């Protein structure tokens, strides 16, 4: 692909990429410690949990849905993993069962959302409550410590690179491939942009939608395994509010809630951007309580700017076509 054919500023992730670069420059000027290798690595490791889940969420949103329950899925998976590992002592068993459970929970979301024609927001709000209740039922509302040495997914490194970063890169590459190069990706975009026309062209709407939610469940499970290893055990507040951070990352990345299109890469950069903001606030010695407010403002500003540029584009389009019409009639 020639570089001049590849229009950087027309990608839907270009805005977040530019914003991230600007923020990086700003943080480097503000504090020389920012650009250190160690800090960069810790930013990416911190971003990995949100980023991996954001990839799954992007699939769901492209398909025209939303999933509020992913934080609860993450919590449920962490509980299953901790309980199973403590009970059996077998790492592969706990890992395998956890990932399969994630797939199942995601698939249940997708099935309920598509089968009963209930708004996905309500469906996943209901499953959020159910999954969270089930998880606490499973653990009896206890915190379960997990031995440090089994936290390979969260704390290990491979060829000198921390495993969470590798997993994030792997999930991103797979995510981009699946949406751009496979028939599933094509169908998903079609279903998301218009379920009606997808129905008329007899696309397998059910299968495609369930698969998108299933990917959401799987990425939440993977993120849960990373998180529990990094935190060092199961805590009762794991995953609360995480769904909104993940959705914020996806929106900042240039994906629209209306469905039909979106950017996996943008979502991942969005997740990194959110961590960079935390990082910057931390350097400014801001109270941790302010973080939420800043995130909220950033999100609002981002959607307002996006909306304004959309309005400008459509005005230009009208102006251009009006001029063309005047040209033909005179």
């Amino acid at each position, binding site marked *: 692909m020639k570089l001049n054919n590849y229009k950087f500023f027309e990608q839907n992730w270009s805005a977040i990429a530019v914003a991230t670069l600007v923020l990086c420059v700003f943080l480097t000027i503000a504090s020389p410690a920012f650009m250190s290798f160690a800090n960069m690595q810790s930013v990416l490791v911190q971003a990995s949990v949100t980023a991996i889940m954001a990839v799954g969420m992007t699939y769901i949103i492209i398909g025209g849905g939303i999933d509020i329950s992913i934080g609860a899925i993450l919590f449920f998976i962490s509980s299953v993993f901790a309980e199973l590992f403590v009970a059996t002592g077998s790492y592969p068993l706990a890992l395998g069962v956890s990932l399969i459970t994630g797939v199942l929970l995601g698939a249940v979301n997708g099935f309920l959302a598509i089968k*009963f024609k209930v708004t996905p927001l309500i469906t996943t709000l209901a499953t959020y409550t159910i999954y*969270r209740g089930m998880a606490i039922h499973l653990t009896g509302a206890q915190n379960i410590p997990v031995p440090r040495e089994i936290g390979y997914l969260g704390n290990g490194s491979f060829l000198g690179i921390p495993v969470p970063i590798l997993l994030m890169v792997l999930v991103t590459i797979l995510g981009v491939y699946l949406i751009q190069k496979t028939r599933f990706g094509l169908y998903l975009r079609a279903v998301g942009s218009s379920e009606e026309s997808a129905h008329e062209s007899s696309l397998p709407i059910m299968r495609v939608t369930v698969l998108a939610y299933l990917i959401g469940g799987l990425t939440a499970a993977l993120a849960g395994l990373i998180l529990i290893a990094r935190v060092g055990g199961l805590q009762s507040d794991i995953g609360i509010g995480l769904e909104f951070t993940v959705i914020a990352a996806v929106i900042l990345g240039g994906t629209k809630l209306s469905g039909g299109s979106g950017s996996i890469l943008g979502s991942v950069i969005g997740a990194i951007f959110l961590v960079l903001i935390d990082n910057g606030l931390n350097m400014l010695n801001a109270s941790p309580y302010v973080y939420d407010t800043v995130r*909220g403002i950033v999100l609002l500003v981002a959607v307002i700017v996006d909306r304004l540029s959309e309005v400008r584009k459509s005005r230009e389009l009208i102006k251009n076509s009006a001029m063309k019409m005047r040209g033909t009639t005179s």
Partner: protein
Amino acid sequence: MGMSSIVKLLKSYPSLPIIAALLVLFSSLSPYFFTAGNAESILLANSVVLIAAVGMTLVFLTGGIDLSIATVISATAVVGGVVMAQTDSVFWGTSAALLAGLLFGLLNGICVGFFGLNPFITTMGTALVARGIAFTLSEGIAVKGTPEVLLDFGFELLWGIPYIMIVGIFIVVICSLAMSKTTWGRQVMLFGSNREAARYCGINTRLIETSVYVLSGLLAGIAGMVSIANLGNALPGVGDTLLLLIIGGVVLGGTHMNGGEGSIMRTVLGVTILATLTSGLNLLGIPFYDQLIVQGVLIFVGYTLAMKLSRT
């Protein structure tokens, strides 16, 4: 009562079968269920949710959603609490809380109504802003110094009904009347069922859409003050667990998320269902996590049923 009037009743209040089933179930399982004391505690615990759910219903009727309502309750409670701690005046505290709620509502309303932003994302952003403000202003702990008058208000009864519940009933009545008797109410309903038609009728659709978010913010402010009266302190995290109950109450009552179908009285029933459920399960000694599972199942089943019943 004839068959057709039963059908009509079910169409307007699709959640009636569920509430009847719950009442029969719990009163047969626990002798304490149908007592005045239990009814009072149900009412006390749910007035905050009820007031906010009225606001959420108005937003739902236009086809929108207000995810910020829960954390705006926290933020307004903290604002009111801080002002009351400084001035020892319930009047100034309430004014400050209502003003804060109004401003949050205005922020949502302008973004959604005038800029045409997606309500889900906008109110999610506002929710984060409000949560940060609540925790920053209170430094993460309960705000002390609530005036005695307000504390008394939270405990006293009028004709056996808690005062704070009377606030809730008052709001329900006013908003129901506004919806059914005023031009504004009819415009909201028309806007929710068909935006284009509303625009062609010459309705100022931007103003209508903005108004419901402003009201939702204002009601969240009232709910914030009520939460102080109910709990004794302004808590920065008071709203965190309420969003589920608020949305759950509205959808269980049978108000559609896509707008144009629903009513405030339906929401009253929906909130009552969740309140009855919690109270009944508590009396039966069911742990809170198992209650969550039941709640989730009921919200899904109830919403599906309500959609079916109100359409037939």
